[in-house]
């Protein structure tokens, strides 16, 4: 994989406030790269400089080898940008909206009808082709936005909070669409507050806070560094004694802490949470041991919400 986005020594200040402070990161071609951080962390400012909307004070950004300072037009050719809040032209139909942006990207008129049809099919709003854009729901507008950023076949998609404000079903649909787009070979850089989406989709993440990059890397690498233990969720039938179950679990090798989850899950089950250090084979041994000790295990799973833990450990709650 080659580096497609390179950010070096990036700085941006608004008055006295340093919005982006010496950020360095690279994104490889074909990656799904997540940018997470609290509000005011500098994610949107970084993205806006990346897509040539904002001039960096210091540092350099290169996209596909082109500098945002020296060749902004070539950078724009490579990227498709979807901001967190964007308007639509309510007096155009869905087809006309995409046709307009296709023309803005200098796609020849003869090619646009076929291209628009393919894009509408990809984002699954082909049936709304002749409807006015402002009659679409928020979820459908977001899908239309995704079609818009793909119209000129960019190498890199830069999406600021693509699932923001969507209902759960629409969020899942956007997530699936992003995966489909990634399979087309696109590099996706997106920011999100929804850590579940980031954990599900991203190959690498960067965590920002107070304008600085506090952690960056592959998710499992970050997790190993910051959250060395694995979080297990174990449910037992309520007939077993809670204290006995906790003691049996705590005594097993690799288990560092056991917590009783009161009031969570099924009423007729005992829910336990345990911190575990070990590989998958050791995890298998643990399950076998619990069953051998006669514990009525009905659920044994690993919580993959570790990004939340990583995030909480990496950040200090600084809001700028």
């Amino acid at each position, binding site marked *: 994989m080659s580096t497609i986005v390179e950010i070096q020594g990036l700085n941006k200040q608004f008055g006295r406030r340093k919005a982006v402070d010496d950020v360095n990161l690279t994104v490889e071609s074909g990656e799904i790269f997540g940018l997470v951080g609290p509000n005011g962390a500098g994610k949107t400012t970084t993205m806006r400089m990346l897509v040539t909307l904002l001039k960096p004070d210091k540092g350099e950004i290169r996209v596909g080898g082109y500098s945002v300072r020296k060749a902004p037009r070539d950078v724009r050719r490579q990227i498709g*940008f979807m901001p967190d809040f964007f*308007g639509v032209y309510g007096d*155009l139909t869905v087809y006309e909206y995409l046709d*307009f942006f296709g023309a803005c990207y200098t796609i020849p008129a003869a090619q646009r009808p076929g291209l628009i049809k393919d894009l509408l099919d990809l984002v699954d709003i082909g049936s709304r082709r002749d409807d006015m854009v402002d009659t679409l729901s928020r979820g459908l507008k977001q899908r239309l936005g995704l079609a818009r950023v793909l119209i000129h076949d960019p190498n890199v998609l830069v999406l600021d909070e693509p699932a923001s404000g969507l209902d759960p079903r629409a969020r899942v649909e956007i997530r699936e669409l992003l995966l489909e787009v990634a399979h087309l070979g696109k590099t996706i850089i997106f920011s999100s507050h929804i850590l579940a989406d980031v954990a599900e989709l991203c190959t690498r993440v960067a965590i920002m806070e107070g304008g600085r990059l506090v952690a960056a890397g592959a998710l499992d690498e970050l997790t190993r560094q910051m959250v060395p233990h694995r979080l297990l969720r174990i449910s037992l039938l309520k007939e077993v004694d809670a204290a006995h179950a906790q003691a049996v679990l705590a005594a097993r090798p690799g288990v560092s802490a056991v917590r009783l989850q009161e009031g969570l899950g099924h009423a007729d089950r005992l829910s336990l949470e345990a911190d575990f250090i070990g590989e998958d084979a050791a995890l298998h041994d643990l399950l076998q041991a619990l069953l051998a000790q006669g514990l009525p295990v009905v659920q044994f799973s690993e919580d993959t919400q570790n990004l939340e833990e990583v995030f909480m450990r990496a950040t200090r709650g600084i809001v700028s």
Partner: protein
Amino acid sequence: MEEPLTSPIPKKVLAPPNVFRRAAENPVILKELRGRMRGRRAFIVLTAYLVLLGLLVCTVYGFIAQQSSTSPSDPSTRQLAGKVVFSSVILFEFLLIGFIGPALTAGAITSEREHQTYDLLRTTLLSARSLVFGKLSSACMYLLLLILTAVPIEALAFLLGGIGLEELLVSGLMLVVDTLFFCALGLFCSSFTKRTLTATVTSYAIILLSVLVLGIATFLLVAFTSYYSSSGSSWSITFLTGTMWLMSATNPFSAAIVSEIFLIQDQALFLVKVPLSGQTLISTLYLPSPWILHVGLYLVLTALMVLISILFVRRPDR
């Protein structure tokens, strides 16, 4: 096999000039026109405008016919009526352009910002020049459509007589140039302000101030010229007369009226004779007709405003 027939005209001549092709391919023009002409609003505006114009013409004609000492069918009365009707329509259209032009374009850039579509445009390959020209062209096209629909009403003046082809052509040219100017003014204000309301108020404030300032300046100049006509030097009188001449060209109303007066009096369309009062070395100054100055001045100002708008739109946020 026979050789295919080829045109004797070289391909370079056959192909439309690059500038026209680029204009036809400007996506902003099509998008703006689609939005503007969709729904009932455009047709309501057009209908209201034509009804008002029709009422104006009927009122003016009725007034002339009533005030005339001869019968309305008398050739001299008809010619007078034709001239007055034509002048009223043209002056009404100048007023329309002055009011509607800035209103059409004051939101050109600011509404994109307010509707959060500006960033989407700026990250495409659409150049600042294309955006500005697209917005300007679509607004001008709509205004020129309004002016064009008034041509049958203007044609009534021809039926009545008293109007020559030169008046039609000069007034048409002035209308087109003024359309460009007032639309460019709104666009210029939109390019450096953040809100449509601010851009609209700024545009009308500039128009009002320039009318007031230039009006007061013209009044003072007339007073000075009268004062100096008896005691002033030749150069000062010449200078004041020339300046007053220039002032008359800054306003479409005064430029049209003064040009028409010289056309009627001296049949002078391009070069007019301005008599100098007082003791001057020369008794007559030959100057271009005010409409020529007006067209030239407004075209230069339009070009400047468009250029500056492009520069404002081009710069990234800091």
